[in-house]
C-alpha cells in the first residue's frame, strides 16, 4: 500500500467536478472529530490538490495531511476519513471483480467441523502473503475477504444490510495463522538472532491486515450510507478523546503512549502560569511607603513576592475494575509530571486505602501491568471486592491524614459508585479541612451523577467535582485547577 502509485485499472480518484465537495466533506468530518481546521487550511488543501493532481492517491494523502494536520496524534483519524472521502474505488474492488471468489451458496456460515473450502483457500493465500510481507496481495485479499464473508442482511429492508469487518474476520480468524507462518519461515531461514523477533513482526502484520479489512468494510458501508455518517460513527476517535470508561485494552495501551507527550505539554502550561504568577500583584502598603521618598508619587511600585514553593500532590484513586483505566492513566500522567510538584504521593483503594507511591515509581518501567500489580500487592480490599468509598475515605482520614497539609492539593479519582453503602462525606470533609484544595475528578457524564448507586451529589456538596471523561479534558483540568 505505501508508496506504490495507483494501479492503472483502479480509478485513483473521483472526477474533478466533485473534488471540492469531497474535500469540504473531509474537512467537516475531521472537525467533527475535534480537529481545528480553518477555512485557510481548507484553501491550502485545495491548492495542494491543484498542484499534485489526482493521479496518485498516496501523494494526495501525504499532501492533504501536510496541509490539514497539526500533530501526529491526528493521523489515524485523518487516514480513516481520507479513505472514506477519497475511496480507492467503487463497489467490488476491480481485482476481485476480474476473478471473483466463489460466493457461498447458503448465506449461513458453515457450522464448526464442516469443511469450508473457500475459507481454507483464503487462509492459505493469506498465510503466504503475510509470510512474504506482500502488501499488494494483502490489500487484494482484504477486498476478497470482505466480499466473501462480510456481507450481512442481503435483500432485506433498505438500511438493514451492510458489510461487517467483525463478521469477516471472525470467519477468517487470521490470528490462528501465526504458528503456521512462523514454522514456514523458520524452516527456510538460518538461525539468526533476528528470528527471535519474528513472532512480533508477524503479529504486527496480522494487525495491519485486520485494519485493512476494517477499512475495506468501512468503505463498502460508506457507499450504502454516505461517507459523512460513517466518518462520524465508525472512525475511532483520537487518543485524547477516547472515553476512559469505554476504552478497551488496545485503546488503553494507546492512551498510555500519550502520557509523556501530554505530561510535557502540561508542564509547559504550568510553567507559563507559574511565570505569570511570579510577577505577582502590587503590594500597596510597600508601594506607598516607597513613594514617600519621591514626594508621594509612586514611581517604583513594589510587588508582592511569591515564595517559589511547588505544591504537593496527593492522589486518591479508586482502582476497582470499573474505573481502573482512568485511575491508571492519571497516576502515570501525574508521575510523569512529578518534577512539577515538590512531592507526589499516591493512594489506591477499593474499600480499603493503601499507599502505592513506591509501586507507581517502579511501575514506570512496565506501565501496562501497573493496575494488576496494585491489586495484587497493595492492600486495597477488605473482605469483599466491591468499591466502598465511605470506608475507604474513612480509612484514609484515620490512618494517612498526615500526608495532607496546608500546601497539599488532593485529587480524588473515581465514579463515586458506592454499591449503596454509607457514603461517609464526613471523612471527605476532614480531608478537605486540612488540604489546600481538594478536587474530585469523575469519569462519568454529569447526567449520570446521582443515578443508581452513585453518591456523587453527596460528595459534590463537600468538594469541587469535575467530570473528566477523556485525556483531553484531564489535561485541561490539570492545567487549570492545580495551584502553581
Amino acid at each position, binding site marked *: 500500500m*505505501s508508496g506504490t502509485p495507483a494501479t492503472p485499472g483502479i480509478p485513483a480518484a473521483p472526477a474533478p467536478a466533485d473534488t471540492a465537495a469531497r474535500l469540504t466533506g473531509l474537512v467537516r468530518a475531521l472537525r467533527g472529530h475535534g480537529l481545528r481546521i480553518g477555512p485557510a487550511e481548507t484553501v491550502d488543501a485545495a491548492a495542494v490538490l491543484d*498542484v499534485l493532481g489526482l493521479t496518485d492517491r498516496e501523494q494526495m494523502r501525504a499532501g492533504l495531511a501536510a496541509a490539514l494536520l497539526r500533530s501526529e496524534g491526528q493521523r489515524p483519524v485523518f487516514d480513516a476519513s481520507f479513505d472514506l472521502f477519497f475511496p480507492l474505488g467503487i463497489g467490488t474492488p476491480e481485482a476481485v471483480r476480474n476473478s471473483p471468489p466463489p460466493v457461498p451458496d447458503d448465506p449461513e456460515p458453515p457450522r464448526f467441523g464442516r469443511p469450508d473450502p473457500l475459507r481454507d483457500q483464503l487462509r492459505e493465500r493469506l498465510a503466504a502473503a503475510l509470510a512474504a510481507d506482500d502488501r499488494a496481495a494483502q490489500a487484494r485479499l482484504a477486498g476478497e475477504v470482505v466480499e466473501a464473508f462480510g456481507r450481512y442482511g442481503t435483500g432485506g429492508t433498505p438500511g438493514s444490510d451492510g458489510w461487517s469487518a467483525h463478521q469477516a474476520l471472525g470467519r477468517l480468524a487470521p490470528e490462528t495463522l501465526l504458528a503456521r507462518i512462523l514454522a514456514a519461515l523458520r524452516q527456510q531461514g538460518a538461525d539468526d538472532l533476528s528470528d*527471535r*523477533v519474528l513472532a512480533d513482526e508477524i503479529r504486527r502484520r496480522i494487525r495491519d491486515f485486520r485494519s485493512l479489512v476494517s477499512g475495506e468494510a468501512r468503505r463498502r458501508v460508506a457507499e450504502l450510507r454516505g461517507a459523512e455518517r460513517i466518518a462520524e460513527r465508525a472512525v475511532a476517535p483520537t487518543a485524547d478523546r477516547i472515553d476512559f470508561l469505554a476504552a478497551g485494552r488496545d485503546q488503553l495501551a494507546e492512551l498510555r503512549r500519550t502520557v509523556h507527550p501530554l505530561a510535557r*505539554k502540561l508542564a509547559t502550561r504550568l510553567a507559563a502560569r507559574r511565570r505569570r504568577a511570579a510577577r505577582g500583584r502590587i503590594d500597596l502598603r510597600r508601594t506607598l511607603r516607597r513613594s514617600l521618598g519621591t514626594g508621594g508619587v509612586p514611581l517604583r511600585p513594589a510587588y508582592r513576592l511569591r515564595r517559589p514553593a511547588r505544591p504537593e500532590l496527593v492522589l486518591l484513586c479508586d482502582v476497582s475494575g470499573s474505573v481502573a483505566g482512568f485511575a491508571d492513566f492519571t497516576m502515570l500522567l501525574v508521575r510523569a509530571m512529578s518534577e512539577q510538584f515538590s512531592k507526589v504521593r499516591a493512594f489506591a483503594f477499593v474499600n480499603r486505602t493503601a499507599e502505592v507511591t513506591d509501586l507507581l515509581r517502579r511501575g514506570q518501567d512496565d506501565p501496562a501491568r501497573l493496575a494488576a500489580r496494585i491489586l495484587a500487592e497493595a492492600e486495597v480490599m477488605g473482605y469483599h471486592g466491591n468499591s466502598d468509598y465511605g470506608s475507604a475515605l474513612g480509612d484514609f482520614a484515620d490512618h494517612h491524614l498526615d500526608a495532607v497539609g496546608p500546601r497539599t492539593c488532593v485529587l480524588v479519582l473515581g465514579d463515586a459508585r458506592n454499591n449503596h453503602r454509607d457514603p461517609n462525606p464526613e471523612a471527605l470533609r476532614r480531608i478537605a479541612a486540612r488540604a489546600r484544595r481538594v478536587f474530585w475528578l469523575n469519569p462519568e457524564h454529569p447526567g449520570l451523577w446521582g443515578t443508581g448507586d452513585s453518591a456523587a451529589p453527596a460528595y459534590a456538596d463537600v468538594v469541587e467535582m469535575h467530570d473528566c471523561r477523556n485525556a483531553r479534558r484531564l489535561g485541561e483540568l490539570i492545567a487549570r485547577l492545580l495551584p502553581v
Partner: protein
Amino acid sequence: MTSGSSGANSGGGANGGGTGFFTSVADTAERLAATGYLASTAVATTVFLADRLGKPLLVEGPAGVGKTELAKAVAELGAARLVRLQCYEGIDEARALYEWNHAKQLLRITAGRDEGWDQARGDIFGEEFLLTRPLLTAIRGEEPTVLLIDEMDKADVEVEALLLEVLSDFQVTVPELGTITASRRPFVLLTSNATRELSEALRRRCLFLHLDYPDAELERRIVRLKVPGLDDTLAASLVRVVGALRALELRKAPSVAETIDWARTLLALGADTLDDAVVRDTLGVILKHQDDIRKAAQKLTLA
C-alpha cells in the same frame, strides 16, 4: 530590495510564489536521493509542496530521524545557501532578526562632530549600521536560500510571535528603515522535537510533516547507502532487530542515526552474523539507558 514576488497565487509557473527547486514529486525524491537522502513518498510530496506553494515546512519527530539532514539535502541539491538559526532558551530578537551596531553608530557620531542632528540621525540608522541576523539574512539574499530554524521547541514562546511576520509574508519590519520584503523567497524549514507545544498561530502558517522512523525497507536502503561495506543479510537482520526494539516501550528508542552507528560498529568488528555475543557487546551503541539495555536483552533472550 522591497519589490519581490507578491506571492498569493500558486499558478503553474516554475516560480509562482514558490522557491522553484523541483518540478514534480518524483523529481524531488530522485534529487534528494542523489544527495544521499532517501525520502519516503510522504517526505518527497511534502517537500515538493512546500517548494511549490512557497510555505514554510514544520518538521516534527523523534531525535535522530534526519530532520536537520533534510534541510541540508535541499540546500545541497538546490545549490542554495543554508542559513541556520539554532534556537535555544532565551534567544531573542537581537539574535534572530537584526541588531543595530551601537559601537559603530557611536563612532560615526563622534567622527561627524560638526554636522547637525538631522543629518546624523538619517545616517546612523542606515544599512551600514545594521547587523543582520539569520532571519534577516535569509530574507535579503538574492541567491537561492534555505532557511533552517532548528529546534524551534527550545525557544521561548515569545520568539514564535517574532517569526510570524517572516513566515507568512517573508518580510521583516525594521522601524527605522521600513519593511524589507524578500526579493526571492527562501525555502523555510522548521524542526521540532515536540518537547513543548508550538502555538496554533505558528502551526497554521506551516505545512506539517511528521518524520517518523522509516519502514524496514527504507531503513535497509539507508543503511546500505551509508555503510556500503556491510553484508546484505546482516543489514536486513540488523534493521529487523532495531524495528523490534522500537516496538518495546523504551525510554529512548533507537534512531536511524543509531542504526547506522550500529552498522558501522558491526562492520568494524568484522561480524558476519548477529549472534548473542556480538549483540550483547554492542547493544550500548543503540540504547543509551541501562534500563533499556536490560529490557532489550530480555526481549532478545540474550544469555
